């Protein structure tokens, strides 16, 4: 099975991965204690068979699956789990361990109580700890191999996963082979080869052409030019998989910058944009993406289905602007992303359509862009007024979206991820409570309330949830899109 991607992996050490092209590979080589259930954001046992949370919600005790071995035949026991956690606290030269720093600051001592029991103590209760454990970065690594290779473990990954690492020729191919001893059974594919094909159009051509001159051809791919969608749908040899992904693209309204300090102006912007039209133009009329109503995607639990979306209503927008003291309209900078992301395929073009929509309600918008790194830096500083931006979720928990976007602790100049610089003590309290609450139903209710408040305060114009997609040749069976964007090959076979 050859799968073509738009980029090569950067690193194959799961804890050290920060990009999707790398995690797509490592998730097939490594298992974590937990994993996301197939096609879901709910968690299920993987290397841990069961777990127990103490009454003070600060201590997790995991019972491990017995008899599991790494690809190098060493046992995957409690000591290996402890090692996999502890190594992320002290990166070696060349390692970043970025996910640990971002997500696991609450983790205290980790102890191997006996060969099959691991105790993890938290410095403070964290209701998002378990879904975070299912992320690719918490794959359990072979201590023997990690010690042997040091920072170069990234090029010699050894885990317990359904596939074993065979070889990696940078920018040519990564080869994995089936692990016959995998605890969930041997995968049906003998080999999986990841091949980077940089150009979207060339990648599709390779998939269409299949095998040339008797050589192994591409069987599946991701990353499609929107213009090529019809070509794929019309080709009986190909199959398109598509579903809304764990992402959101939006227009951030900097609530600290006049005139956006006025809620009525922000609501007017929500009413002024014809988002159906944007989806029609830029997401192939819904085939590539859907209109976003809330800051988090609907496939996530806790989604507030009862939020009444802002309609496209230019008249009401004009009235609100007049009420706010701008009867003659106003001037506004709209920043457009210079890079393409699934949730924002053509930033500048989208900016121009937004500019046209705004002109109709009397807002004179100027579309501005910067080079990408500068763009992010400036947004983190709050230099923008209205800016297009987006987010791809890391783990299936509303916290990963709402806390990131709306908690005041994320609205510090210089490093904001709360690009609206939105500060609301009530929302802070709800988000904090949801982090601590043990009961999922209670947490969902808290997150729904947050979505209602931020909808009313209109610190964003939520725009799109991109569909994620994969294109496969007809004979590929058993491949499914995962909400987290994982590319899993354990259940795949060729007809």
């Amino acid at each position: 099975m050859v799968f073509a991607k738009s980029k090569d992996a950067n690193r194959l050490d799961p804890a050290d991965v920060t990009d999707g092209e790398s995690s797509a590979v490592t998730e097939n080589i490594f298992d974590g204690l937990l994993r996301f259930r197939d096609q879901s954001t709910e968690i299920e046992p993987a290397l841990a068979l069961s777990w127990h949370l103490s009454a003070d919600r600060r201590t997790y005790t995991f019972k491990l699956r017995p008899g599991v071995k790494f690809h190098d035949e060493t046992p995957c026991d409690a000591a290996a789990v402890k090692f996999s956690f502890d190594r992320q606290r002290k990166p070696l030269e060349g390692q970043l361990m970025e996910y640990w720093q971002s997500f696991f600051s609450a983790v205290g001592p980790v102890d191997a109580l006996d060969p099959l029991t691991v105790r993890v103590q938290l410095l403070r209760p964290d209701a998002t700890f378990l879904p975070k454990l299912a992320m690719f970065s918490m794959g359990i690594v072979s201590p023997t191999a990690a010690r042997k290779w040091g920072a170069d473990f990234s090029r010699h990954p050894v885990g317990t996963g359904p596939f074993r690492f065979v070889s990696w020729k940078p920018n040519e191919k990564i080869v994995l082979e089936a692990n016959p001893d995998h605890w969930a059974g041997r995968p049906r594919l003998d080999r999986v080869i990841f091949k980077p094909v940089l150009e979207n159009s060339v990648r599709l051509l390779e998939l269409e052409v299949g095998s040339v001159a008797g050589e192994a051809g591409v069987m599946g791919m991701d990353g499609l030019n929107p213009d090529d969608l019809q070509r794929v749908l019309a080709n009986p040899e190909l199959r398109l998989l598509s579903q809304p992904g764990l992402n959101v693209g939006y227009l951030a309204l900097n609530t600290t910058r006049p005139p956006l300090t006025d809620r009525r102006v922000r609501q007017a912007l929500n009413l002024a944009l014809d988002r159906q039209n944007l989806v029609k133009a830029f997401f192939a009329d819904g085939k590539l993406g859907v209109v976003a109503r809330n800051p988090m995607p609907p496939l996530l639990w806790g989604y507030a289905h009862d939020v009444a979306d802002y309609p496209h209503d230019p008249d009401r927008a004009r009235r609100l602007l007049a009420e706010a003291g701008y009867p003659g309209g106003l001037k506004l900078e709209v920043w457009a992303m210079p890079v393409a992301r699934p949730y924002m395929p053509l930033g500048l073009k989208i900016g121009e359509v937004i500019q046209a929509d705004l002109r109709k309600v009397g807002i004179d918008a100027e579309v501005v862009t910067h080079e990408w790194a500068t763009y992010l830096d400036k947004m983190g500083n709050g230099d923008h007024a209205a800016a297009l931006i987006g987010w791809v979720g890391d783990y299936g928990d509303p916290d990963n979206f709402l806390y990131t976007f709306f908690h005041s602790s994320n609205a510090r100049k210089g490093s904001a991820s709360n690009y609206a610089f939105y500060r609301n003590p009530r929302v802070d309290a709800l988000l904090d409570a949801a982090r601590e609450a043990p009961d999922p139903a209670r947490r969902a209710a808290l997150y729904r309330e947050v979505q209602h408040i931020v909808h009313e305060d209109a610190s964003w114009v939520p725009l799109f949830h991109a569909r994620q997609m994969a294109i496969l040749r007809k004979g590929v069976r058993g491949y499914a899109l995962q909400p987290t964007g994982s590319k899993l090959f354990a259940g795949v076979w060729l007809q």
Partner: protein
Amino acid sequence: MIKVVARRLALLAPILLGVVAIVFAAVRLIPGDPATVILGERATEAAKAALRHDLGLDRPIAVQFAGYLGGLVQGDLGRSLSTGNPVLYEVAARFPATLELALAALALAMLIGVPLGLYAAVRRNSWIDQLATGASLVGVSMPIFWLGLVLMLVFSAQMRVLPLSGRLDLASEVAPLTGLYLLDTLLRGDLPAFRSAALHLALPALTLATVPLAVVGRMTRAAMLEVLGQDYIRTARAKGAGEHRVNWKHALRNAAIPIVTVSGLQAGTLLSGAVITETIFSWPGIGGLAVGAVFSRDFPLLQGCVLVFALTFVLVNLLTDLAYQILDPRLRA
């Protein structure tokens, strides 16, 4: 000759030091913080500060430069920020691919361009000359992105004889000796893999060869025309030398210096990575590596790439100069 080589090699050190200093300053002038690029939309200030510290970016630039030079003299170019691998590993893994592609393209350009230019000069103003001149104009001005895609559509999608991207059949494994797959597969006696490597090389090499081919062809024609008008050629003809001998021996040798000069310049350019060709054909060369390093603000990797480019240019120029010495006895002082 040995003196020339020695002098040029001695100059290498100061040239490289200058290049390193300029590149070191230049990459840091690109706006955008590497920590932001690496951490992306997810960055928190604490994480960015920690990362900047880990990367040594919070130290004064002079200290950073001294540290870099210190590593450099020991052959340590640092580690790539995005992959964490030693820069030397990254560059060494990718340079042979560029070398193979560049040599193949240059060989095509010389083997076709020189005879074509020569023939066009000898048959000046004939239809062949007109055709060659017109074709070379097209070759120079052709957008190679477009040409690459057309070649793919014809030879891969329609005729299905040449593969679209990559260097080798995915099922083949070639343990690297030189990193040049044509050579490695031959040395290992693996003929199916050799065939696969040649098929994979064909389209990118052809695409990449168009511009140098046109340049070399035009230069050969111009240089030959100048030489053919000179007295000694008339003398050679008067002595009864055959047309073939006059053109290939008497004329071409004297026309060779400008041809070698442009070929050397083209070689330097090809070896610094043919970014567009490498991108269309997903050829894993050093051009794409350098471009990726710019976008990800991978300072150490970018510095490593530019260092290799500078080294390549200096060496190619040296080889060109040596070729002058062989071609023109007057220069052998």
